[in-house]
Every structure is written in C-alpha cells, then in structure tokens.
C-alpha cells in the first residue's frame, strides 16, 4: 500500500498566535511534499479528531504527522490506530520554553525557525517509518507460567496465576511444599490493627493450591535447562531423575532465601560456644514445638535476648539490611512474653526498622514490656545460671552485663538465585554449559544465571521496575529478589504473577514489554553486512541475542525490549527497526536548516532520552523553570544506548556547532530504563574524539550529561551553559558544505 501522509497542525494552546502557521504548512506541503496538510484550532477536540478520521477513511491517509503538543500528553485522543505516526512538539518544547518578548523580531524569528525545523524532522521521521511486522514464531507460543520454588512466594504466585485463569506449573525441588514458612509458629500481623500475632497462613494456602485445577504441582523436581525465549521457553524438568521438556511462556523464580551461616559470625556473638546461643529459625522451631527452653538443661527459658543485625549491615558479613529480621524478632519477643507472665525479652538492636504498619507492632511489643537496648553484644559466657552477655549499651553510654537463658541471633537473608556480575565480560562465542547449583541453567550466551543488581540479588531496579530481571519473561519474587518478610513476599508474588501474565500475552501479540510496552517492532538485521564483531550480542543489556557457531547474531525477538542498544552498537549499521533506524535519525538531523556562519545563530543538536530527559524537558515549561536557548534542536531517542556514533559525525558534517546528549544516570544506582544503555553510550562516546580529530574539530563540541526526570529546575542552566560554551568557539567550519 502506498504511504499517504497527512500533516495536521494544531493552532490551539497559543500556537496559532505565536507562530506563522501558514509558513509551517508550506514547509510540509512544498518542501516536504506532504499531500494532505491541514490546521485546526482545537485538534485534540472532537471536531479536530473527526477531521483527521475523515481523511483516514475518505482521503486514504495512512500515516500521520500531528503537530501540537508533546507526545506525552493527549495520548488517548490521538490513538487512531495508525502505526506510522509522529507527534511534533510545537508547544511544550518550543513555545513554552522560549523567551520571546513582545515585539522582539529576532526572538520571534528564532522561534519560527525552531518550529519549522521540528515540522521538517517530523515529516522525515514518518517518511522513514514502516509498518511493524509483529513477530510470529514458527512454533506456537505458550501461555503457561512456570513457578520455581514451592515456598510461600511460589505458592502465592502459582495461585495468583491460576486464579487469573492461566495455567501454572509449580516446581519444588524437595519432597514437600511450604518452604521456610512451614517451620513457623505464628506470623507477624498482616491486617489491622497490626498488633496481634496471626496464625500461620500456610495450611490454608496449601489446600487452595492443591485444590486448584490450573496448577500442576511437581515436587522432587529441578530445572535442568532453560532454552528459548518468552512464549517459547523449553524447560527441561528433572523429576526424580527423569527429564522431560515443557514449553512455557514465562517463568517466576521464587526460590526464597538462605539464612546466613551463623558459623561465619563473629566469635563474640557466641554461636557454637553454648547450645543456648541459637538462630531465629531454631528459636521458631522451638516455639512451634511449644518448648521455649534452654537447650543446655531443658529448663524453661524466661529471659531471652535477641541480637538483631547478627551479621547484617556489617561489611565483613552481609552488607545490607535484611528487612524482615527486626519484625520477626519482635514477633519472637512476643512469644516469650506471652509464654510466661514474668518473662523478659531483650531486643539488642542497631536501629529498629519496622516499615509501614509494623510500627504499630513495634509499639505493641513495647507496651507488652519488651526491653529495647541499642548496642552490640560484645561477649557471651555461659555458666550454671545461664548466659552472661556483655553489651555495650549505646543509649546508657556504658557497658552493661545481663543474664539470660537464651540468646537468639537474628541472622540475615541471602538470595538462593545464582547471579552473575553484570559488568563481567560475557563468555564469547560459546553457549554456557550447565552450571551446578544454577536454578534455571539458562542457555543464554551471557550466562546461565541472572545478572545481579546489588549483593547478588537479581533485580534490574528495586524501585523503578520491581520484579523485572534483566532476562525478559523471567521474574523473581520474594526474598530471592531482595530480603523481605512474609506479607511483602505475598504482595511481591502477586506482582510477579501479573508480570508473568503480561509477558505471555504481549509476546503472543508480538508486542514488547516494559519499558516500551506494546511496541510491535523488533530489531531486524541484514546478515550479509555482518562482520561477526559481536558488539550487539555483548552489549544487549537483556541477553536477547545468542550467536551461531560462526559468530553471527541470533536474535530472540521475544526477549527483546526494543531499546535499540544493538542498533547503536553495530559499526556496520545493519540493525534497524520498522519504526527506528540509524538512517531515520541521521536523515532527520540532516533535514534541519543550518544558518550560515555569518548569521551568528549557532545550532546545537540535543539527543534526549525519551524515558527521563524528555519528560524533564516537558516539565521545564510547565514549571516555569526558565527559558531555553532558541538555538537548540531536540531529537528524542528511545534510549541513549541506541545512539550511533554515525549521528555525531553526521551532525558535525552538517554544520551543527555542538551535540548534547542527555541520558539517564548510569553506573552504581543507575536509572537507565534499559539498565546499561546510557552507560554503553558513554563508553561509545569516549571514542568520539577520534571522529572529531579526523574532522579537526574540538572534542568539547560533544558532551553527554545525566538527566533525571526531576531535573527540570536545572535543565535550563545545563542546556544554556552548553550553548554558551559552544558559542564561545568558532562556528563549525563545515557549515554550508
């Protein structure tokens, strides 16, 4: 079908008053040869939309350039079922960020020039677009969710999946289901007023899982191998020595935590020196058996001390907070107090961390007489009357000694998931063999485990994208993902279940998941041009690309998040998307008008990441953070990772005076939505000076900055500062070539 582009310019929101709309229309019609060009004073209103719709049906328009506001607003209105569309922002990133005093002709002219350039690049972008061909596999997609781990996280996840109407396979390596929670006496409160111990929820949950027809339970089973991609995972499950392959759509890993080995703790905590020094799990088992006694002589334990942070937040043991131990120690203190009217429970803590409603539970334990001592246990000695603890009391600012019957060490949680260092070089050119101890044994070029975010936990961003690992379609829930208690684990499992369902549904439509949810395009590559340099396979932050024996990339489209990092990495420029390509952006930047050097109107190209920098730019105008230089021209990129060095060379050759790249924060505590995109762009950019040297240009003409979504306040300073730096240089000598 022939492409017929319609360009619609909105004159509302002050656009019509500020700009020469007729001239903008002429650019589209005469210069860009767009067959249908119209204005409307309220394009997003019913009439405006009806006008566009009419052209879609009557005029055969099938591609759209909508010029008006930012693409981040009025999405519903302009969702017209047209894939080839661009929103040209004349308002938020043009009108609203420029300072044009009444009657200032130069400023008005500058503004008009910016708007005209944006119309130009919008038209070029749509011309360079193709309709996406959603990916279809040669074998059928599965919508079954595999849940690995039969503890409370896995049970909850499987049940949530099943209740939503999907099939789940629940795999447990042991004989029985229930995990760590099965060993627990009671649980801390999960409902208002958050001050009563609650019965163990496991029996009820187990009965429900066992009674649900959508769940297939496989105990004594391990995952021997995981091949494939979302919708197409072929998982080899080994049940009691017999292996069978199951096709599943997505995977939830809920293998829980492993308690820190108390044998590794500092000797001063006394573990191993007396049977009366025990861990929280051992104490829980005592309580469940109804025997809170001294292990040494079986006498009732009425004085119980809990040492919180037994190894946690200690650089020589577990660096991080385990999140749940304060609360479970409070719970265990209540066991003690409720057991004997004259019992005492001592909590020796660093800080009591009781997030959310657990603060009420903390008060409850205080009110019941729990004794809180901020400090460290420095020495434990045992005698006939029990254990003697020497504690450095940070509140009394003195050492104190106390006698107790039991000392309970609240040890921390470690993940059970095998992870790999995300920054370590990936094994090049070969598939990774099965790894003993690996949970999923992924047959991915980048290794059998999941990349870790921090402290071996396999997340991709705890706050922004919980459950998302860096392997698409594989979600980790509960303490395997980060340390957490029971209530949080159940919420987490439900969240992961929804993600797992979302991915199987998206994949079946050929659509991407987070962060470009719904994108129907996927990277295609021209094999003849490939030099087997392996940059794409190595740089893909999501391990989406495998390799054949010759080193050619093997794309797994359903693993792909459409970040474009492979496209930016490929020196041969042979990777592209139907709606995004090196040629598209290159053509856009070349289409803008570069004034002669004598005009003293420099041009600064700004590549801004759509995830954080573009929203921040949109907020500059809204929050009246200050005006931006009229000499900038913004081109949004879907991720800095997609930045191709060719564009920098093209920009310089076209006469831009400078290029500013605005990507997300990278490195530790990164905020890049595609994990490594902005980091990789920075690495690529370090080579740009070669290009600039070749062109005999100053390397300071190209600069990358980190922009956070909250940075609207500082952006004017950042951008205008760069424009000033560039203006201080001579104009780019390539202007006019």
């Amino acid at each position, binding site marked *: 079908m022939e492409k017929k582009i319609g360009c619609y310019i909105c004159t509302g929101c002050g656009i019509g008053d500020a700009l020469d709309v007729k001239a903008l229309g002429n650019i589209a019609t005469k210069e860009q040869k767009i067959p249908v060009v119209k204005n409307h004073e309220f394009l997003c209103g019913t009439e405006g939309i009806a006008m566009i719709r009419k052209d879609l049906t009557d005029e055969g328009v099938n591609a759209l350039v909508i010029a008006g506001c930012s693409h981040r607003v009025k999405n519903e209105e302009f969702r017209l079922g047209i894939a080839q569309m661009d929103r040209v922002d004349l308002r938020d990133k043009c009108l609203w960020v420029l300072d044009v005093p009444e009657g200032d002709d130069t400023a008005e002219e500058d503004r008009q020039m910016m708007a005209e350039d944006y119309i130009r690049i919008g038209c070029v972008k749509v011309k360079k677009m193709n309709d996406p061909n959603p990916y279809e596999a040669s074998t059928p997609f599965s919508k079954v969710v595999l849940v690995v781990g039969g503890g409370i996280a896995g049970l909850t996840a499987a049940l949530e999946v099943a209740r939503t109407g999907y099939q789940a396979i629940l795999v447990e390596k042991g004989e029985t289901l229930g995990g760590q929670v099965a060993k627990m006496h009671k649980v801390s409160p999960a409902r208002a007023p958050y001050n009563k111990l609650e019965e163990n929820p496991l029996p009820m949950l187990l009965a429900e899982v066992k009674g649900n027809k959508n769940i297939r339970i496989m105990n004594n089973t391990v995952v021997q191998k995981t091949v494939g991609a979302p919708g197409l995972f072929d998982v080899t499950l080994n049940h009691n020595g017999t292996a069978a392959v199951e096709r599943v759509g997505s995977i939830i890993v809920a293998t829980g935590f492993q308690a820190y080995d108390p044998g590794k703790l500092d000797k001063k905590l006394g573990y191993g020196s007396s049977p009366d020094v025990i861990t929280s799990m051992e104490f829980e088992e005592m309580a469940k058996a109804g025997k809170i006694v001294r292990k040494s002589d079986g006498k009732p334990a009425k004085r119980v001390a809990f040492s919180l942070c037994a190894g946690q937040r200690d650089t020589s043991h577990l660096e991080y907070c385990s999140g749940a131990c304060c609360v479970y120690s409070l719970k265990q203190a209540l066991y003690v107090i409720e057991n004997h009217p004259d019992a005492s429970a001592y909590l020796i803590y660093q800080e009591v961390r009781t997030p959310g409603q657990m603060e009420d539970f903390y008060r409850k334990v205080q009110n019941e007489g729990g004794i809180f001592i901020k400090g460290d246990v420095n020495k434990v000695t045992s005698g006939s009357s029990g254990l003697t603890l020497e504690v450095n*009391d940070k509140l009394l600012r003195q050492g104190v000694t106390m006698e107790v019957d039991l000392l309970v060490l609240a040890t921390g949680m470690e993940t059970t998931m095998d992870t790999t260092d995300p920054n370590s070089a990936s094994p090049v050119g070969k598939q990774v063999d099965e790894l003993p101890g690996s949970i999923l044994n992924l047959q991915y070029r980048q290794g059998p485990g999941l990349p870790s975010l921090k402290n071996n936990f396999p997340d991709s961003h705890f706050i922004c994208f919980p459950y998302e690992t860096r392997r698409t379609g594989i979600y980790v829930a509960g303490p395997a993902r980060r340390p957490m208690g029971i209530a949080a684990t159940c919420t987490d499992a439900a969240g992961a279940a929804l993600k797992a369902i979302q991915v199987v549904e998206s994949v079946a439509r050929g659509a991407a998941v987070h962060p470009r949810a719904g994108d129907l395009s996927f990277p295609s590559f021209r094999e003849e041009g490939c030099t087997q340099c392996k940059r794409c396979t190595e740089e893909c932050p999501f391990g989406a690309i495998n390799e054949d024996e010759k080193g050619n990339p093997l794309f797994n489209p359903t693993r792909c998040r459409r970040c474009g990092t492979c496209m930016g990495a490929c020196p041969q420029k042979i990777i592209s998307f139907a709606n995004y390509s090196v040629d598209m952006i290159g053509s856009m930047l070349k289409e803008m008008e570069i004034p002669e050097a004598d005009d003293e109107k420099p041009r600064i190209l700004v590549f801004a990441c759509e995830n954080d920098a573009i929203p921040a730019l949109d907020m500059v105008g809204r929050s009246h953070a200050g005006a931006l230089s009229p000499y900038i021209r913004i081109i949004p990129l879907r991720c800095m990772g997609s930045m191709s060095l060719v564009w920098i060379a093209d920009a310089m050759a076209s006469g831009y005076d400078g290029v500013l790249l605005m990507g997300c924060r990278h490195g530790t505590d990164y905020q890049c939505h595609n994990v490594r995109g902005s980091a990789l762009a920075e690495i690529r950019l370090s080579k740009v000076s070669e290009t600039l040297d070749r062109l005999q240009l100053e390397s300071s003409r190209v600069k990358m900055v980190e922009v956070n979504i909250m940075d609207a306040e500082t952006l004017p300073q950042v951008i205008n500062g760069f424009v000033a730096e560039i203006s201080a240089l001579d104009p780019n000598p390539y202007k006019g070539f």
Partner: protein
Amino acid sequence: MTYDLTFAKEVYENSEEGHWIKMCMQCGVCAGSCPMGFLGAWTHSPRQLFQMVRAGLRDEVLSSTDMWMCTSCYNCIVRCPRNLPITHIIHGLARYASVQGKADPKQSTHHFAKDIFWENIVATGRVGEAALTMKLYFKDGIGEGIKQGLEMKDSALGMLKAKRLKPLPFRGKIKGYPGFKAMLKKAFELENQKEGKA
C-alpha cells in the same frame, strides 16, 4: 543487674504518667528540643532518663537533678513522635524522687517547690509574693539574700509601680480557709492511699 525490671515497674505504677516510659523509642527528638539542653542544665536528657528507668538505675534516676531542671516549656511534648507526655513524666519523676526521699533537699527547684512555695501557699491559701520572694532570696543566708535583693531592686520597683507586686507581705488568709485545709487533708489521704501508705 542492669535491665532488671523491678524499678521500671515501680515507676510505671507509681510515678505520674510513668507507664508511658516504655513507649519511648529513643529517637532523641525531646533531647534536641529541650532548651535546658542548650543551656547545659542537665546531664541526662529526657530520653536518657527514660532509658535509665528502663535499665533499672534506681539511684541514678531518683537522685538526679535533671528532672528538676524542666521549665515546662512543652517543646518536647509537642514534638515527640510517640506522643509521650514527656513534661508530665518528668514532673512525675521529680515528685516521685521527692516522695521517696531521694531528691536532694537543697536542690533549688526542689527546695523552692517543696518548702518555700508550698509552705507559703498553705499558710494562707494564697501566694504571698513578697514573702515568697524574700524567702527565695534569703534561702542561702543573709549575705546572699541582700546581694540578690539589690540585684533585683530595679525590677521590683518597676513591678511595684506597675502594680504587679503587692507591697504588704501579709494579707491574711483567704475566705473559707478551713475548707481549703479540709481539701488538702483529703488530698493527702487520697495520695497516701494510692502510694500504699495509708
């Protein structure tokens, strides 16, 4: 033995609002809010006193002068995230120490409250300001009294002029003084009952 709960329980039961002490989470907001802290007037902040109660440091708490330094500014009460009625707890501890005979009789606020102020008000049923002031000035002997009196002379004259100070030291008993005495008697009875001394 530290953290023996006998003393804590004693305070929770007998000292005014004392049971609140167990709810303190030791955040230190009271310590940071108390003007007496900036003046360096106490050795232990409210929070520390509370932890000392919980730790069972009976003598240290009861013989401490810290709680006698409270000016009742209520800064701490307003700010305590755990809603402890700190000012009242502090006053309660002061009183409890006094009742237990542990408070230093010469500690100024204690001495003033217990002897000077109390005797003054009980004698007539009203505050005799001049007498009260004299007693306060002369509590450390004649020489000190004269010195302090001279220091404050201008203020006193100003207050006289503004009719904020009655010149006559003695204005006699209030109307219905026997009723007032009967009320006090009953109050003592109730209090003794509560403290198990009846």
